[in-house]
């Protein structure tokens, strides 16, 4: 290890440009003759378009073109796809409605793109978009997934009868039912998971350029995975073959999943740039982001847990209805299935699990992966159940979990996952110690003396990250492999460029990836540059989501470094006339073990490029690439405990203590990991206490701005207490598990378990807003009890 190697708190290399306003985001890019795009969007949640009149708009100053879906389809632009095939329990493939980048017949959610206007300035484009007259014949609207399944509900797509996309199952139903038949205790809960809007700081943007001489397109865009974007744009939307399309995702200001997907606007800009013969730029405003960025969560679930007479869990039965919105976004189908139900075993030894998931169309914004993607929903169900069941059978929540923890690894759950390593009790013990769990009764008494209600709740989460073995996800319906690539280029002077298919949009890869190289070669991080986000520079990659860049992306770099080291050792051995096996790399030098003979890494690199004296038959140069395909998911896990105090007069919940004890395996940079955990916790606490996406009956989004959508702010959260326990992941060379999503996955049930504990009630929905909590206090006569 070096001063900047694995485990060091190296300050982020990228922060200088971000903090000094020198970041280069898509909206910062400009091109000669660039036109600006604005979209004409549906004002109705469900309507037939009877006419689109562009006459007035075309006459407005600066307007170049107004293009609609008829022209898009005529030009052969393909429908938007969903890249993960799910089969219903009867074996039939999922029912997918046609999704066009510009819709010209029936619009199905407010904000859906109908036409694109290109003008000289953004203002002109927006003015002209306002002047496009769309006439509609309104159709009945349905926004809730349970309503959409009802007999006689408005029908969205002819392809999906009854609005049912799939009726999927996992686990053994008969064996699970038998466990319930023999149970000593059964607990049933209805559990909703509220819909969220992702809200990355930078809204989506696209700048498309077509070079007619080369028949070549360039797209700057806000993507978490530019190579996947290029693949999908080429293979499915017929924009251009891959060799004629360069996708660049420069600095990207947050994604949280919402920038994985290929949206209508990016496709329309690419298509339009050729039609109008000039570069086309579009930058979403915040209202458009609320209306069109894929939302997250939105589940209705009924869960049942069966126990034997010793309070050991014998069966778990879950029925979930998932709202996927009006269309199927790129990975939407996988979120409530393989990313959700496969985690329903939690940290527990559950012999029988059966889950049934119905995915449903509604007249709302499409729903797809959002920080955690399926795993927060699973964790919320599991951990709300565990806490509630423990209380029902008269056990402490910790003790009930302890007697049901998985303690032997590997562990095969009944729902596909094979957990490789973990020590769940270690996280639980650490969290309980830090929060002084035993002192809670005293703290509660103090709160009660002051007229306040106090509660404590825990959550022992597990997630599957680093997605994932390509063969495994392929067998489950994924349209892509989920490996990662890396290339390590050593320059002649010994500096290094690492090309990676991972994409950094807040994760700090430029620092942590350099730390890995520094650790291996003993070079300072300043001599190591990370190159990412450009399909012309990096050959291929799968991008960043699912907490995979460490476990998968860095493993690919480690594999490429193995090859670089092997070749460097061969050169050094040759130059120093030593045996290759005696060469050690340390502190930026290649040494002959047991002697004082050594060469600097720079000298070896230079020798590789001068090629004056290389081993017989060796090619010049020092540059190696690798593809890494994991053998399994990774399984970060941990224990979060939340302690709240409630003001019964106003219903305001304040988090007094929050402890997160996580097992992420190997940690490269503890400071960056803490930042990731803090961010995840705030998003999870946001879901539990503040954020809630609401539509009215007409399908209008009521929470379409920060006036009504409650984003968490610094004063909503306490100073977190963090701890890590470590079991190394055996599945990758670095022992890493991933940390990007844990906070958002583990925290909501801890918060709600604490709030229900304080109120002395069993059930409540998120978010625990002041009004909702106050109403629960009134309905349950709690205030009197406290005084």
């Amino acid at each position, binding site marked *: 290890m070096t001063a900047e190697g694995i485990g060091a708190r190296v300050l982020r290399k990228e922060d200088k440009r971000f903090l000094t306003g020198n970041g280069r985001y898509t909206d910062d890019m400009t091109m000669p003759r660039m036109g600006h795009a604005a979209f004409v969007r549906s004002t109705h949640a469900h309507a037939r378009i009877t006419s689109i009149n562009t006459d007035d708009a075309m006459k407005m100053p600066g307007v170049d073109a107004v293009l609609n879906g008829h022209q898009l389809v005529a030009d052969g632009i393909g429908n938007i796809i969903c890249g993960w095939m799910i089969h219903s329990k009867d074996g039939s493939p999922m029912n997918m409605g046609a999704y066009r980048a510009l819709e010209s017949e029936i619009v199905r959610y407010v904000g859906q793109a109908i036409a694109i206007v290109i003008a000289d300035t953004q*203002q002109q484009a*927006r*003015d002209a978009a*306002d002047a496009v007259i769309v006439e509609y014949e309104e159709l009945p609207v349905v926004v809730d997934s349970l309503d959409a399944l009802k007999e006689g509900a408005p029908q969205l797509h002819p392809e999906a009868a009854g609005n049912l996309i799939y009726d999927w199952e996992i686990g053994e139903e008969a064996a699970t039912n038998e466990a319930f038949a023999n149970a000593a205790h059964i607990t049933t809960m209805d559990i909703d998971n509220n819909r969220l809007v992702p809200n990355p700081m930078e809204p989506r943007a696209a700048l498309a350029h077509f070079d007619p001489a080369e028949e070549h397109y360039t797209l700057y865009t806000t993507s978490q995975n530019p190579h996947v974007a290029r693949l999908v744009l080429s293979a499915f939307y017929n924009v251009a073959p891959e060799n004629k399309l360069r996708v660049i995702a420069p600095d990207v200001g947050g994604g949280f999943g919402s920038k994985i997907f290929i949206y209508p606007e990016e496709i329309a800009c690419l298509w339009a740039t050729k039609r109008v013969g000039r570069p086309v730029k579009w930058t979403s405003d915040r*209202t458009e982001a609320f209306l069109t960025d894929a939302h997250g969560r939105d589940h209705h679930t009924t869960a049942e847990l069966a126990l034997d007479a010793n309070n050991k869990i014998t069966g778990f039965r879950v029925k979930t209805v998932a709202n996927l919105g009006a269309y199927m976004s790129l990975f939407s189908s996988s979120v409530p299935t393989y990313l959700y139900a496969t985690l329903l075993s939690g940290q527990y030894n559950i012999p029988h699990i059966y889950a049934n998931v119905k995915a449903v169309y509604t007249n709302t914004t499409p729903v797809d992966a959002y920080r955690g993607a399926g795993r927060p929903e699973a964790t919320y169900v599991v951990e709300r159940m565990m806490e509630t069941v423990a209380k029902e059978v008269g056990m402490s929540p910790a003790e009930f979990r302890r007697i049901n923890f998985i303690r032997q690894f590997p562990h095969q759950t009944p729902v596909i996952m094979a957990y490789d390593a973990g020590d769940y009790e270690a996280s639980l013990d650490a969290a309980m110690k830090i929060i002084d769990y035993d002192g809670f009764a005293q703290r509660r008494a103090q709160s009660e003396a002051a007229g306040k209600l106090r509660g404590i709740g825990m959550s022992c989460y597990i997630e599957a990250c680093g997605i994932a073995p390509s063969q495994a996800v392929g067998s489950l319906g994924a349209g892509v492999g989920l490996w990662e690539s890396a290339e390590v280029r050593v320059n002649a002077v010994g500096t290094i460029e690492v090309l990676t298919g991972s994409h950094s949009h807040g994760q700090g890869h430029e620092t942590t990836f350099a730390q890995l190289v520094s650790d291996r070669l003993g070079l300072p991080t300043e001599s190591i540059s990370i190159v990412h986000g450009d399909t012309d520079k990096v050959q291929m990659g799968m991008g960043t989501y699912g907490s995979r860049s460490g476990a998968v992306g860095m493993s690919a770099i480690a594999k490429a470094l193995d090859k670089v080291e092997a070749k460097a050792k061969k050169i050094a051995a040759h130059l120093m006339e030593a045996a290759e096996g005696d060469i050690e790399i340390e502190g930026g030098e290649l040494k002959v073990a047991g002697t004082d003979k050594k060469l600097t890494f720079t000298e070896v690199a230079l020798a590789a490029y001068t090629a004056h004296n290389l081993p017989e038959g060796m090619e010049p140069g020092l540059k190696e690439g690798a593809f890494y395909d994991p053998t399994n998911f990774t399984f970060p896990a941990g224990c979060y405990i939340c302690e709240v105090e409630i003001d019964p*007069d*106003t*219903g305001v919940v304040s988090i007094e203590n929050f402890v997160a004890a996580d097992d992420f395996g190997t940690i490269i940079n503890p400071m960056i990991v803490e930042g990731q955990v803090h961010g995840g916790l705030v998003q999870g606490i946001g879901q539990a206490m*503040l954020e*809630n996406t*609401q539509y009215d009956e007409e399908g209008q989004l*009521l*929470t379409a701005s*920060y*006036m*009504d*959508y*409650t*984003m968490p702010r610094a004063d909503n959260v306490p100073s977190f207490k963090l701890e890590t326990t470590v079991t190394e992941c055996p599945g990758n060379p670095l022992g890493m598990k991933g940390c990007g999503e844990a906070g958002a996955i583990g925290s909501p049930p801890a918060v709600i378990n604490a709030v229900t504990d304080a109120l002395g009630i069993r059930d409540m929905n998120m978010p625990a*807003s*002041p*009004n909702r909590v*106050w*109403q629960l206090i*009134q309905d349950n006569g709690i205030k009197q009890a406290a005084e």
Partner: protein
Amino acid sequence: MYETKYHRASSVSDAAAMLKNADDGKLLSGGQTLIPTMKQRLAAPSDLIDLRHIAEMSGITKQADGSIRIGAATTHAEVASNDDIKTALSGLADLAGMIGDPHVRHMGTIGGSIANNDPAADYPAALLALGATIETNKREFSASNFFTGMFETALDEDEIVTAVILPVAANTAYAKFPNPASRYAMAGVFVAKTSAGARVAVTGAGQDGVFRMPDMEKALDSNWAAEAVVGIAPAEDNMLSDMHGTAAYRANLVTVMAKRAVAASA
């Protein structure tokens, strides 16, 4: 935002003339509501007449009778940090310090805020409770005649608020329950012991904007203590109701905030 013409007025009469000459002019006095509304394309004035640089409209003066005169173009930050106000009307200084965030407090002005009369704005509660006089380029209003309803005032279309005059009062305090999302008041209660007796004014909660709580005032007249207002709540029928707070919840908040304001007023 649609295109608009910006004018910087140098005097009140200059501003009045500019407004008269504009097709569809709007007075700009900090713009903390107007500019976001324009950015969302929900307002499209042909001309903006900026009042913030009119010398006669800015500044805070303590007058001979002890009352405080605040120029309409005075920012919230200036009110919050003014020593005379902190001494004579500490509740008002606290209120100004709770408006929005530091950016808003350094741009937004008292005149702009009261002329807009957002039902969730803070100042109307203070002005109504303190019995303020609102001075315009045409006349004077008492606060009780000035605020006429949600986003409505007694101002003529072309009338410009020039100053607010606040008589001194004892035991002033403001307690605000912020909307969790916007942080505007869901219930903001200003209490004061004025020369005319106890005054309690409520913003953020009522359907018709700011209102007084006569029952609370009566109770406080005989006993200026937090317990005095317990059990006194406004009628739910008159309360706003939305996704952040039902009418019942808001009515409860009025009582709770009144209690806290009185407790803080000592």
